[in-house]
């Protein structure tokens, strides 16, 4: 029974990370209709920035995380300005190829500075909490709590503030948003900024229980794509629910079925779902 609860904790941890990454991806998709293949690279850069701030500059974990979020947010905004904005009227295949270009560039750049070694990043939360035999490492608890706080914060921002409402409006209808005077450039930049910051925070939270290396974004971004297809491209609650589904499927599949093949579970699920429902699980209407 205890092992079962342990898997629940693992599922929640994985689901929180995947959810945060997928959230950034789905926000960008909702606004610009770009599947941002470079999002995984932003996640990876986020982890390296935290590593850089903590190990090389010696600042505290929280400060490093905030710094990394700021750097990656700016990077995201730069991507929007320099790459996706000029391509806004091009055929969709161009956006995808450009996103791949950004991904390759970021990965190679990080690899040039830090090499392709696997690195360990420690956090101040190394303790273990013991609830009557149920063991929860502090970092995992932090991930779960952190992710939930961020998601609630983001929801409040999107629903309760005027600035957040412009993002929602733009996602609902581009023309409608223009009609009421919403500045599309501002919204696009803001969305890329938020999406980058979310990726950086997710990476900084997850790095201490994982490793930091240039290819770390590959699996995560592909799973994030699976998640937003599951949850409906552009849907915020869909990204969170989808993240949890994949997180739990992996935690339980990895434990009860096969550790070696646990990474295939997400993709197998995707293949099954898309074979049966080409428009995704919860998608309403066609994009």
């Amino acid at each position, binding site marked *: 029974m205890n092992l079962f609860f342990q898997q629940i904790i693992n599922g929640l941890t994985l689901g929180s990370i995947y959810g945060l990454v997928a959230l950034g991806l789905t926000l960008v*998709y909702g606004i610009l*209709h770009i*599947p941002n*293949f470079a999002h995984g690279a932003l996640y990876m850069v986020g982890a390296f920035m935290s590593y850089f701030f903590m190990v090389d500059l010696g600042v505290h974990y929280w400060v490093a995380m905030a710094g990394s979020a700021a750097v990656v947010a700016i990077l995201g905004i730069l991507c929007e300005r*320099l*790459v996706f904005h*000029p*391509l806004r009227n*091009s*055929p*969709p*295949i*161009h956006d*995808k*190829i*450009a996103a*791949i*270009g*950004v*991904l*390759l*560039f*970021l*990965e*190679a*750049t990080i*690899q*040039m500075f830090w090499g392709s070694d696997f690195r360990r990043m420690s956090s101040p939360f190394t303790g273990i909490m013991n609830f009557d035999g149920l063991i929860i490492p502090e970092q995992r608890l932090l991930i779960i709590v952190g992710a939930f706080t961020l998601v609630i914060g983001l929801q409040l921002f999107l629903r309760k503030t005027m600035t957040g409402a412009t993002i929602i409006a733009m996602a609902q209808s581009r023309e409608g948003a223009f009609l009421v005077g919403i500045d599309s450039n501002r919204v696009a930049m803001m969305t890329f900024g938020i999406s980058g910051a979310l990726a950086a925070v997710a990476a900084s939270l997850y790095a201490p229980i994982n490793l930091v290396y240039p290819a770390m974004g*590959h699996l995560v971004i*592909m799973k994030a*794509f*699976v998640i937003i*297809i599951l949850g409906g*491209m552009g849907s915020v609650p869909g990204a969170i629910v989808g993240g949890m589904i994949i997180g739990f499927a992996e935690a339980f599949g990895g434990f009860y079925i096969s550790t*070696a*093949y646990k*990474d*295939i579970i997400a*993709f*197998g699920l*995707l*293949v099954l779902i*898309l*074979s049966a429902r*080409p*428009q*995704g699980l919860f998608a309403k209407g066609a*994009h």
Partner: protein
Amino acid sequence: MLFKLGSFFMKPGAKMALLALAIVFPALASNEYQVYVMASAFVWAIAVYGLNIITGYCGQLNLAHGGFFAIGAYTLGLLTSDAGWSFWPAFVAALLVTAVLGFLVGVVSLRLKEHYFAIFTLCVGFIIYLLMDKWEELTHGPVGVRDIAAPYGFGVVDFTETTPFYYLVLAFLVFSIWFMGRLSRSLLGRTFIAIRNGDELAQSLGINLMRNKVLAFVLSTTYAGLAGALYAGMVRFIGPEEANIIHTFDMITYLLVGGIGTLTGPLLGTISIVWITQSLQFLEEYRMILFGPLLVVLVIFFPRGITGQFLTWMHHKAQTLSPAKKEKASKVQTATSGEVKNNA
């Protein structure tokens, strides 16, 4: 006139000159290594021609292309090393396996549109990679496949030598380009282009979308399988890294640099980038620092690559040379620009 412009590669003179150059290349090369590099560039070019069918002509970004390349290589490798087949039967089997798998994947994935298709194939490519890495009983896992047979020359030639192998690959490349040329000018090729330009419009013309897309996909995976099998016969040692997504991205770069949806593009793009990478050996690991931004700049400023840019330039030149015909030419151009693009 415009047709001539657009068919630079179609001109018998240019074609023959290129072919002659390719034939004498081993004699001109200063060492065997250069011949080897050229042969590998040809192998990649064949795969890029495959990608061009589904992505260039048919407009569907297939991110599993490198995976099918690896399937071709693995089929040949495993059949010749573990099952003890000889090269040519295994070679035919590799083509069949990639075609059949391409059909199965195509039937499922091509029901999806645009982004969904790209993401789906990205996942398929990754599943292929994971299977090659983890399914040790079949694929030997990360160790890879050794002792792959070289093609035998029926006692006439010895393909383990670099130069004969070069000519073998060249022969396959010439056949691939010839087939592609026939395809792009056929009704089928034009059907693919119609689907790219607007699948709803194509459907309203009575084109069976699914059947044509699947056909394009199977053709493209067979090309990938052909290239993969030749690759395995050339390097004779393969590992799961052949299925790495980075190879797909490389091929997209080649295609885009040369000119997506053109006939000359894949060859031009592949050969130029392979040689640039070779001459910048120190960059090998970091080549993407250059190629990443290059991809972005290309799609923003030169979405039609070298070939497309060349055609536009030729067209402008033709127009300024004969101002009297200008108006007429521009009318013709609007009418045929679609074909000019696609027959280049």
